[in-house]
C-alpha cells in the first residue's frame, strides 16, 4: 500500500461520488464500475480454473451417479437416467456394510497411529542432538518411495510363509516353526485390516511429523522460558503452551489426514486387493472396483459420491474449527 496511486484508487472505490464527478462520461462508464469490472476480470482465471478442474468433474460425477453409465456410454454418448437405482444397488449390496465399517476402522486407526507417532517424533526432534538433522530427513523416506514399490515390499515382508516378519517371529520363538502356525498378516481376514492400517500408518508418519514439527518451531521460545520461570514443568508446558498454540496446525493435520485416508486405494489394492474375503474392502476400493473392474461407472460414481459427502463433512468441520480459531 506504499504506492500512492493505489491508495487513491482505494479511496476512489470507497467514495464513488468523487470518482464519478472526476471521471464522469469516460466511455459511459464510471471509474468505479470500470474498476469493478477489472476486479472481476482478475477473478476470472481463478474462477475458470475452479469451474473446469473442480466444479465440472464433481457435477459430472454427481450426475453420473444417477445414470446407467456403462462401457456403451463411451461409444454412444447415451446414459439413461437411473434415478436412485445406483445408490440403492450400492447401499444394499452385502459388501457395503463391511466396506463402510472397514473405512471407519481404517481411517480412525490410521489417523490415531499416524498422529500420535508423528507428534511424538516431532516433539523428539524439537531438541537438538548430534545427527538430529540427518535423522529428521531420513524420516521422510517412506514419503519419497513410490507407493507401489513400498506396498510391494511390504507384501513380501508380510508374506505368511517366507516373509521376513514371520521369519523374525520364528527366530525369537514367538510363533512355532511350522507354516500352519504363522500369522497370515495379509491372508487372514481378522489380521489383514490391521496389517493394512499398520502399513498406512508407516506411510503417513512423515506427513504428520513434518507438519507438526513445523508447527512446533513456530511457537516462540520465550514462552517456554517465561513458563519455566513460573515453574511450569515439561508436561504442564506442553499442556498449557504447546497444545493450545498447536491447535490450528493439529486441525489441519487431522482434517487433511482424514480426507487423505478416506480415499486411499493404492495401498489396499497393492497389499490385498480388498481381500481376503472383502476383509480390507473400503468404500474407496469398492468404488474403484465398480468403475474400473466391473465397468459399472454409474454405481462406481454413486459409491464415490458417498465418499465425497463424508469428506465434505470433515472439510466443513475443519472450516468451522478454523473460523473459531481466527475469531477467538
Amino acid at each position, binding site marked *: 500500500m506504499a504506492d500512492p496511486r493505489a491508495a487513491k484508487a482505494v479511496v476512489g472505490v470507497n467514495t464513488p461520488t468523487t470518482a464519478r464527478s472526476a471521471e464522469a462520461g469516460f466511455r459511459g462508464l464510471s471509474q468505479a464500475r470500470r474498476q469493478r469490472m*477489472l476486479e472481476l476480470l482478475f477473478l476470472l482465471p481463478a474462477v475458470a480454473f475452479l469451474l473446469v478442474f473442480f466444479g465440472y468433474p464433481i457435477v459430472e460425477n454427481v450426475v453420473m451417479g444417477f445414470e446407467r453409465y456403462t462401457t456403451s456410454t*463411451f461409444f454412444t454418448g447415451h446414459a439413461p437416467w437411473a434415478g436412485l437405482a445406483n445408490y440403492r444397488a450400492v447401499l444394499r449390496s452385502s459388501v457395503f456394510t463391511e466396506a463402510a465399517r472397514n473405512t471407519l476402522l481404517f481411517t480412525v486407526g490410521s489417523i490415531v497411529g499416524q498422529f500420535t507417532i508423528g507428534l511424538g517424533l516431532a516433539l523428539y526432534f524439537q531438541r537438538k542432538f548430534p545427527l538430529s538433522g540427518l535423522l529428521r530427513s531420513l524420516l521422510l523416506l517412506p514419503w519419497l518411495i513410490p507407493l507401489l514399490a513400498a506396498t510391494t515390499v511390504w507384501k513380501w515382508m508380510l508374506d505368511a510363509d517366507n516373509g521376513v516378519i514371520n521369519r523374525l517371529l520364528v527366530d525369537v520363538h514367538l510363533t512355532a516353526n511350522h507354516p500352519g502356525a504363522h500369522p497370515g498378516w495379509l491372508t487372514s*481376514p481378522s489380521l489383514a485390516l490391521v496389517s493394512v492400517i499398520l502399513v498406512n500408518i508407516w506411510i503417513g508418519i512423515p506427513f504428520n511429523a513434518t507438519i507438526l514439527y513445523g508447527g512446533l518451531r513456530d511457537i516462540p521460545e520465550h514462552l517456554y522460558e517465561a513458563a519455566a520461570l513460573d515453574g511450569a514443568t515439561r508436561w504442564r508446558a506442553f499442556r498449557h503452551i504447546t497444545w493450545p498454540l498447536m491447535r490450528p496446525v493439529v486441525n489441519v493435520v487431522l482434517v487433511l489426514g482424514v480426507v487423505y485416508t478416506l480415499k486411499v486405494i493404492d495401498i489396499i489394492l497393492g497389499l490385498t486387493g480388498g*481381500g481376503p474375503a*472383502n476383509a480390507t474392502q473400503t468404500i474407496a476400493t469398492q468404488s474403484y472396483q465398480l468403475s474400473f473392474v466391473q465397468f459399472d461407472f454409474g454405481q462406481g460414481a454413486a459409491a464415490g459420491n458417498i465418499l465425497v459427502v463424508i469428506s465434505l463433512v470433515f472439510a466443513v468441520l475443519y472450516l468451522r474449527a478454523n473460523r473459531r480459531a481466527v475469531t477467538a
Partner: protein
Amino acid sequence: MTRFPAFLSRSRLTAVTALAVLIACAAYGAATSAAASKTARATSIRVVDYYASEPDKSIVGGVLNACGKSVGVKINRDAIPGPNLIQKVLQMASSHTLPDVLMLDNPDLQQFAQSGALTPLGNYGITAKGYQKGVVAASTYKGKLYGLQPITNSIALFYNKDLLAKAGVTPPTTWAELRADAKKLTSGSTYGFALSAPATYEGTWQFMPFMWSNGGDERNIATPQVAAALQLLVDLKSDGSMSASVVNWSQGDVDDQFKAGNAAMMVNGPWQFPVLNAVTSLHYGVVPIPVPKAGGVPVAPLGGETWTVPNTGNTAHEQLAAKVVRCINSDKNELLFGKKRQVVPTKLALLPQFVRANPALKAFSTVVRTARARTGELGANWPKAATKIYTAEQCALTGQGTPEKCLAQAQNG
C-alpha cells in the same frame, strides 16, 4: 487487500481475447483436419494391442508389418500395457478416435460389441469356420462374429519332476489322487500344491477348471457341483498341502513359489515357460488339471486375445482393417504365434502338426480342445458372475464359512 488500478490497458485485454480466439481456431483446425483425413484414400491404418513387452511386442509387430505389406497399407501400431488397455480404449471410444484394428482380451469382447463400438466381421465375409468352439463363442455377440482369435492358451497342472520322483508319485489325474499326492509331496517348507486365488478375475480364472470339470455353471454357483469343487480346495488347505497365502497370490506369485521349490505342483499357463526354462536346475512337466473322477473330461477356461474391426465410420479403413485381421489369423501366422509365443493355435485342424513341432505344448493342446470361454454363456454379464465366484472362493478359503454357505451368499450378492 490490493486493488487493481486502472493501468491495465485495453490493449492487454485485447491481447488476451486474441489469444483465446487463436486457441479456439487451432482446436477447430485440428478437428477439421482430422475429419478431412477420414475421407482421404487409406494409406495407413491404426492398430492397438497390449503386447507392450518383449518378446511378444516384436513377434506381434513382425506379423502386423508383414500383414500390412501384403494388404498394401502402412501399420501405425500402438502397444498399450495390458492393465491400461480398456481405459484407453474407452477414452478412444468417447473421443471417436478408435483405431482401425483393435485387439481385446477375449472376455472383454462382448461388452464392447454390445456398445456398438465394433463392426460384425460378417460384413467383410469373414467366418470362423474350423475354429475351436469356445473361441468362437467368446468372439460372438447376439449371433454375430465380432472378432477373430488366432491363438489361445489355458491353464494346466505343472509338476516338479524331481520332487514327484523323490516322493514316489506320478502326476495326479483325479481329485482324489491330487489330494493324496499333494499330501505326500508336502514336507518342510514345500507345499504339495499351489494355485492363485486372489480377489480378482485371476482367482476366478484359476477356479474355473475345478468348477466346470465338476459340472458347475456360472449362471448359478449355489449348487452342489460348485460346492464340491470349492470343498476340494478347502481340503487341500486344511490338509496343509496348500498355503493359506494363496488368497493373496497372483499367478506370477504362484510361479515364483513353484520356481523356488516351495510348491511341488501348481496351476498355471504356458506364458510361464520362459521364466521356468530360465531356471536350469528345475525339471518340470505339464498335465491337464485333474478331473473329479477317472475318465472325466477336463474343462478349462480359454485365454487369448481376439482381433476386431472397430466402428470408425470410415468404410475404406474398415475394409483394409478386416483384411489385416484375416491375415493375422492365417494358418501360417497361427502356427508362428503358437511356436514363438508358446500358445496354441485356434484352428483345430492345425493342432496335430503343431503338437508334432512343439511337444512342450502337448498338454495345453489337449486342454484347449475341450476348453470353454468364460463369456460363452453370460456374455457381457460375465464380470458380475466372475466377481461372485472369486468372492465365494475367498470366503471359503479363509474359513469365513462352508463352501455351501459362501456360494449361496455370493450368489445372492
